[in-house]
């Protein structure tokens, strides 16, 4: 092969690479080519906390998640010991914003959906929307925590866990702070618990579409 031919081949390769760059406009093909990736500018964030083996004393607090200063939208999952009749968890799930200043702090009990078909006798599985605009709880969530307001120690069993999946940032506390204060100590034991699977339509909460 002559030198001219070599240079011509080099030129063709370079032009080809440039053309591929033009066609795909910045798309990079690597080993993650099957992954859809994010849509928009927010990276989904998942926090998984194993609770098995933990004992939360009366009055104890277990922080699970903190996205401060951003308040976020996402989903909450928990498996935890519960009352077998009411399905209310023995620990209370709270969410909102815990600020360095008490006056900037607002937390409330998270409305929970009891998932019968994923629960066992002594351990209930719950889902919750973060935030839940229809069923209550703190409207702006930067923090999620478990608090033991039951007055007795609560021990978690095998498989108990909390999982928080955040899909979107909704805003920042710096530009939209709470204008009222509510502290963990202001709350009483027991989350609101909804159940879509029992015979009582009055405890389904709002936002659920009943199929006729």
């Amino acid at each position, binding site marked *: 092969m002559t030198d001219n031919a070599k*240079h*011509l081949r080099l*030129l063709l390769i*370079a032009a080809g690479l*440039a053309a591929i760059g*033009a066609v795909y*406009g910045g798309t990079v093909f690597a080993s993650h080519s099957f992954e859809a990736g994010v849509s928009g500018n927010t990276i989904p964030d998942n926090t998984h906390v194993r609770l098995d083996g933990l004992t939360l004393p009366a009055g104890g607090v277990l922080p699970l998640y903190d996205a401060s200063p951003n308040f976020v939208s996402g989903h909450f999952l928990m498996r935890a010991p519960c009352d077998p009749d009411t399905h209310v968890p023995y620990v209370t799930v709270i969410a909102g914003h815990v600020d360095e200043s008490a006056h900037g702090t607002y937390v409330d009990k998270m409305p929970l959906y009891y998932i019968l078909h994923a629960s066992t006798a002594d351990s209930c599985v719950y889902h919750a929307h973060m935030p839940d*605009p229809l069923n209550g709880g703190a409207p702006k969530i930067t923090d999620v925590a478990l608090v033991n307001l039951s007055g007795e120690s609560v021990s978690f069993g095998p498989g108990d866990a909390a999982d928080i999946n955040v899909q979107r940032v909704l805003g920042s506390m710096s530009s939209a702070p709470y204008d009222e204060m509510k502290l963990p100590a202001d709350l009483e034991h027991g989350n609101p618990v909804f159940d879509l699977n029992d015979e009582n339509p009055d405890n389904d909460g*709002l*936002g659920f579409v009943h199929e006729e």
Partner: protein
Amino acid sequence: MTKAIMAAILSIALVSGYAAILQPAFAHAHTTLAVPDGPAAGHEIQLVLGHTSEPTFGAKPGVHDGKHNMEVRISDAATSLPVSGASLKADKYYFKDIRSFNRASSAERADEVVKGVTVGGVFGEPGHYVARQVQKEGIYGYRVYGTINYFGEGTVPIDSTIFCKSADGDTTKFNSPGWTGSFGCTEDVNDILFPKRNNDVTRIGTESGSAIQQVAVGTDVPQTGSKASGPAYGLLIGLPLAAAAGVFGWRSLKRKGDGQ
């Protein structure tokens, strides 16, 4: 050779820098509406109205495309969650200047009126609705009407009018009550020329059909996914690369030819 590479890098940097500039500013008007009845009665939604890519400038060939859509963003007031499922239409009003606006006895006497424009949801962006348009320097106002579905537990009606805010005078006389803030009226892009006397821009504006018009500034902000997508962006990235490759090859061949 080095110059060619530098030129290619500079081109890419300019394109990337321009993409970074295309961020939505938020000089918008907002109003709060309450769910009137049903299980969610009393809950409030926030409706924000304005133009994409503020500040807005009228179209000027080869300089600015003037594409500033009328946009509405709807969210739950308490949580800021986006509210999708709204059915919205808009009547659009245009006055060419403040004198024309001041003379009018009603919005319906605007220099141009378009009625019943659909304000459609943006795919993949819940709570975001737009009506596409290309603007001209002047005063814009909108009457937005329709219904907003509040998470399946209530319907909020809306019928409200808001005009842009002009630096030339008060433009609030046709506004419905309840609005806070506003979006800016559309200006002449020549107002932001620096230096003020720019013969290159003046020439572009008068040379219809020139090649440079094909890369007129785009300002259509609503888009999903990365800004680094689409055939136009690909070409903008690819052409400098292709040019660099061509220069490299040509000079290499020429040098070889000279050597022989």
